[in-house]
C-alpha cells in the first residue's frame, strides 16, 4: 500500500478512531477536543488526497472480501474526483459542526454519546462516498440512517424527539427496500455489484431494459427516502427535534447528500423514463418545499423545508441529465445551509437566555418572538445574511451560480422537449421566487422588526436582551458565509457553467449556452419578484387586508401543514387499523379457526402418541434385546475360551508341581535328580 492510499484511508478511519478514543477515555471535558482533532486530521488528509486526485488519476484499493459458491466478491474503495470533492466538503462541514457543538452543547450530560455519534455519522458518510461495491455502499448507507436515528432522538426524554427519530428511521426503510430491489436487479443483469465493473460492462453487453428500469426505480426510491423527496419528505421537518448542530450536519453534509450522491453515481445506467420520474419528483419537491416554507414560524422548520426544496432542485438537475450541476449545487448548498443552521443555532442559543419563568408560551425557536437581532448579534448577522443570500440565489453568491446552472439546464430541456418538461420548468422557476420570498420573510422576522418578546406585556418586566454568542459559535457561521461568496467557485459572478468544480468533475453536461442569458434573466426576475412581494408585505406593511384574507385561506393551511402529507400517512395507517378492527367484529368468525386448529392439533398429537411413539418404543426394545444377547455371548463364549486355556495351563503346572512336595528344598532336590537323569542320558 503506498502512502497516498494510506493517507486517504486514514482520512476515512480517523473519525472512527476518534469515537473509540472518546469511548475509552470518556472524560467529558476532553471529548469535544478528541472529536474535533480526529476530524481535523481527516480534513488534512482529505485535502492532501484531493490535491492528488483532482486532475490526476483516481485511487483505488481492492480486497478479496468473500466467496459465495462461485460468486467472488471483491471489495473496492475508490477515491475519484466526484467522491474526493464531497469527502472534503463533508469533513470541513463536520469540523465546523464539531467546533460549534463544543460551545452549543456545553454542559450536556451526554456529551460522550453526542460526540461518538457525530464521529460515527461522519465516518459512515465517508464510507458511503468511497465504497465502489454496492453492497458495502448499502451497509454504510444503513449506518448513516442509524446514526441519524440516534442523533435525531438524542434527547431521549423528549417524546417528540423519540417519535421524530422513529419516523425518520421507518420512512428511510421504504427507500432502502427500493435500494435492495435495485441491488438484486443489477446483480441479475451484470452479475457483479461493483459499480466500476458495471460501468465497464454497461457498454458491452446486451441489456434487459425492464431490469434496468427496475434498478433505476429502486435507486430512485432509495435516494428519495434519504434525500427527503415528496412523498417521503415528512421525516425531515420532524428531524428538527435533534440538536441544532446535528441538523446542520444532516441537512448539509451527511444524510441528505447521500441520496443525491448515489443517484449521480448511478446516473450512467438510468433510463430516460426513470430520469423523467426523477425530474418530476424533484420539480414537485422543489415547489412544495418552498411553498410550505412560506408560512412556518419555527426557524428550524423553515430551514428544513428550504432544504427539501433545494434537494428537489438537485434531483431535478439529475432528471434533466445535468448531474454535474447537481453536485455543484450540493456543494454550495452544503456550505450555506450549514451556515444557516449553525446561525439558527446561535440565534436559538441567545434567545434561550431571554426567556424567563413568567413568559407563558415562549418558544426560542419561534421567529415571531425574535426581532431586531441585527443590533444584538451583529457578527452572527453577517454570516447568516450571506448564507441566506446564497439560499435565495442573490447574484454574487455561490447559490446563485449553482441554482442558475440547474435552471439553465431545466430551461433548455423544457424549451427543447416541451410537454411535461414545461410543467417541470415552471415549477422550478416558481420555487425560485418562493425561495426569495421566504428568505426575506425570515430575515425580516429575525433581524429587522422589533424584538417580538419586547411587545409582550408580561414579558417586558423580566426582559433580558439577547447577547452575541461566543467565538466558537459565530466564527463558523461567518466562515461559512464567506464561503458562499462567488469568489470561492469562479471569478466571473455570472458564468454559471465555468466554475472549477463543474469543469473538474467532468460528467458530460448538456450544451445549453444559447439559453444561458435567458436563464439568468428569468431567475433574477423571479428573485426580484419574490423580494418585491416580500418587501411590500413586510417592510412597507402594505396589503394588510390581502394578508389577513390569505391567512384563513385554504392555500395557507395547505402550506402550513406541508400539503397534509403527514395527515395522509396517518390516515393510511388508521385505515389499516380500522379495517383490522372491523374484521375483528364479525361474530364467531374466529371460533371456527380456533376449532379447526384444535382438531388438527389433537389429530397430530394422537398420531404422534400412537404411531410415532410405537415405532420408537419397538426400536428401543429391539436394541435392548440385541444388547443382552451380545453381553451373554461375550461373557460365556469369548470369556469361556480364555478360562479354558488358563485351566489347561494350570493343570499342566500341577502335574509337575504337586509331586515335588511343595517345599523349596524338596523342589531343589527334585531338580537335582532331574539334572542327574539328563546328564546320565547324555553320557
Amino acid at each position, binding site marked *: 500500500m503506498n502512502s497516498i492510499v494510506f493517507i486517504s484511508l486514514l482520512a476515512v478511519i480517523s473519525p472512527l478512531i476518534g469515537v473509540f478514543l472518546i469511548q475509552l477515555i470518556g472524560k467529558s471535558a476532553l471529548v469535544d477536543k478528541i472529536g474535533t482533532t480526529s476530524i481535523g486530521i481527516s480534513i488534512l488528509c482529505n485535502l492532501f488526497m484531493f490535491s492528488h486526485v483532482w486532475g490526476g488519476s483516481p485511487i483505488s484499493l481492492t480486497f478479496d472480501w468473500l466467496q459465495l459458491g462461485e460468486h467472488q466478491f471483491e471489495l473496492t474503495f475508490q477515491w475519484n474526483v466526484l467522491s474526493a470533492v464531497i469527502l472534503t466538503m463533508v469533513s470541513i462541514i463536520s469540523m465546523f459542526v464539531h467546533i460549534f457543538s463544543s460551545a452549543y452543547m456545553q454542559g450536556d450530560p451526554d456529551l460522550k454519546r453526542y460526540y461518538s455519534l457525530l464521529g460515527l455519522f461522519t465516518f459512515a458518510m465517508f464510507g458511503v462516498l468511497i465504497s465502489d461495491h454496492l453492497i458495502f455502499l448499502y451497509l454504510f448507507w444503513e449506518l448513516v440512517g442509524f446514526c441519524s436515528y440516534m442523533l435525531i432522538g438524542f434527547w431521549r426524554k423528549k417524546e417528540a424527539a423519540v417519535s421524530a427519530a422513529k419516523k425518520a428511521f421507518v420512512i428511510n426503510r421504504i427507500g432502502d427496500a427500493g435500494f435492495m430491489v435495485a441491488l438484486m436487479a443489477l446483480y441479475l443483469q451484470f452479475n457483479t455489484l461493483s459499480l466500476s465493473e458495471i460501468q465497464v460492462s454497461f457498454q458491452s453487453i446486451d441489456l434487459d431494459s425492464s431490469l434496468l428500469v427496475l434498478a433505476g426505480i429502486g435507486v430512485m426510491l432509495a435516494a428519495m427516502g434519504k434525500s427527503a423527496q415528496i412523498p417521503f419528505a415528512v421525516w425531515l421537518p420532524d428531524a428538527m427535534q435533534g440538536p441544532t448542530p446535528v441538523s446542520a450536519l444532516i441537512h448539509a453534509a451527511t444524510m441528505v447528500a447521500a441520496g443525491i450522491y448515489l443517484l449521480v453515481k448511478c446516473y450512467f445506467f438510468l433510463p430516460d423514463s426513470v430520469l423523467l420520474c426523477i425530474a418530476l419528483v424533484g420539480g414537485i419537491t422543489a415547489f412544495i418545499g418552498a411553498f410550505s416554507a412560506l408560512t412556518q414560524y419555527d426557524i428550524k422548520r423553515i430551514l428544513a423545508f428550504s432544504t427539501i426544496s433545494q434537494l428537489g432542485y438537485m434531483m431535478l438537475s439529475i432528471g434533466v441529465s445535468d448531474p454535474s450541476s447537481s453536485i455543484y449545487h450540493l456543494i454550495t448548498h452544503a456550505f450555506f445551509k450549514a451556515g444557516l443552521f449553525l446561525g439558527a443555532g446561535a440565534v436559538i442559543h441567545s434567545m434561550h437566555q431571554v426567556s424567563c419563568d413568567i413568559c407563558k408560551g415562549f418558544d426560542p425557536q419561534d421567529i415571531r418572538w425574535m426581532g431586531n437581532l441585527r443590533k444584538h448579534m451583529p457578527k452572527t448577522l453577517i454570516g447568516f445574511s450571506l448564507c441566506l443570500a446564497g439560499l435565495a440565489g442573490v447574484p454574487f453568491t455561490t447559490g446563485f451560480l449553482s441554482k442558475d446552472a440547474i435552471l439553465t439546464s431545466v430551461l433548455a430541456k423544457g424549451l427543447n422537449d416541451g410537454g411535461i418538461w414545461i410543467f417541470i420548468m415552471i415549477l422550478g422557476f416558481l420555487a425560485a421566487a418562493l425561495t426569495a420570498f421566504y428568505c426575506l420573510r425570515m430575515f425580516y422576522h429575525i433581524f429587522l422588526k422589533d424584538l417580538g418578546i419586547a411587545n409582550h406585556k408580561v414579558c417586558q418586566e423580566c426582559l433580558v436582551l439577547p447577547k452575541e454568542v461566543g467565538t466558537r459559535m459565530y466564527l463558523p457561521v461567518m466562515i461559512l458565509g464567506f464561503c458562499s461568496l462567488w469568489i470561492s467557485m469562479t471569478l466571473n459572478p455570472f458564468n454559471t457553467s465555468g466554475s472549477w468544480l463543474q469543469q473538474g468533475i467532468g460528467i458530460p453536461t448538456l450544451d445549453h449556452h444559447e439559453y444561458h442569458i435567458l436563464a439568468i434573466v428569468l431567475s433574477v426576475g423571479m428573485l426580484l419578484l419574490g423580494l418585491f412581494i416580500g418587501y411590500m408585505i413586510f417592510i412597507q406593511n402594505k396589503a394588510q387586508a390581502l394578508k389577513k384574507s390569505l391567512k384563513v385561506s385554504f392555500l395557507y393551511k395547505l402550506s402550513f401543514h406541508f400539503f397534509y402529507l403527514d395527515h395522509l400517512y396517518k390516515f393510511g395507517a388508521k385505515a389499516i387499523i380500522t379495517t383490522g378492527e372491523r374484521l375483528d367484529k364479525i361474530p364467531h368468525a374466529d371460533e371456527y379457526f380456533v376449532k379447526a386448529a384444535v382438531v388438527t392439533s389433537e389429530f397430530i398429537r394422537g398420531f404422534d402418541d400412537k404411531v410415532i411413539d410405537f415405532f420408537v418404543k419397538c426400536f428401543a426394545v429391539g436394541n435392548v434385546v440385541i444388547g443382552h444377547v451380545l453381553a451373554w455371548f461375550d461373557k460365556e463364549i469369548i470369556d469361556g475360551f480364555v478360562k479354558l486355556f488358563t485351566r489347561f495351563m494350570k493343570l499342566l503346572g500341577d502335574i509337575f508341581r504337586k509331586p515335588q512336595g*511343595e*517345599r*523349596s*528344598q*524338596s523342589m531343589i532336590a527334585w531338580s*537335582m535328580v532331574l539334572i542327574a537323569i539328563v546328564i546320565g542320558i547324555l553320557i
Partner: protein
Amino acid sequence: MVTFLHYMLASAFLFSIGLAIALTKRSAIVALMGVELMLNAANINLVAFNLKNPALADGHAFAIFVIVIAAAEVCVALALIIKLFQYFKSVDLHQLNQLKEK
C-alpha cells in the same frame, strides 16, 4: 600316594555333604553353610584339574575367583536372612511359604 582320583573322591564327598545339608536342614543359616561346602568342593575340583596342565595355573586363578565371589555371596545371603528374620521372626525354611499356592 595321593592320586588325582583321591582329589575327585574327596571333592565328591564334600559336595554330597553340602548338598545333603542344603536340602535337609530347616535353618536357613545352616542351609547356607551347605551351599558354602558345595562351593569349596568345586574349588577342590578346580585345583585338582590344574594338575593336568600345571604351567598355565588357570585352575588356581579360578579357585581364587570363586573364593572371592563366595565371600560376596555370603554377605548378600546373610543380609537377606537378617531381613527375613526381621519380617517373619524366624529363619525356618519350612515356614517361608508365602508364595505357595494355597
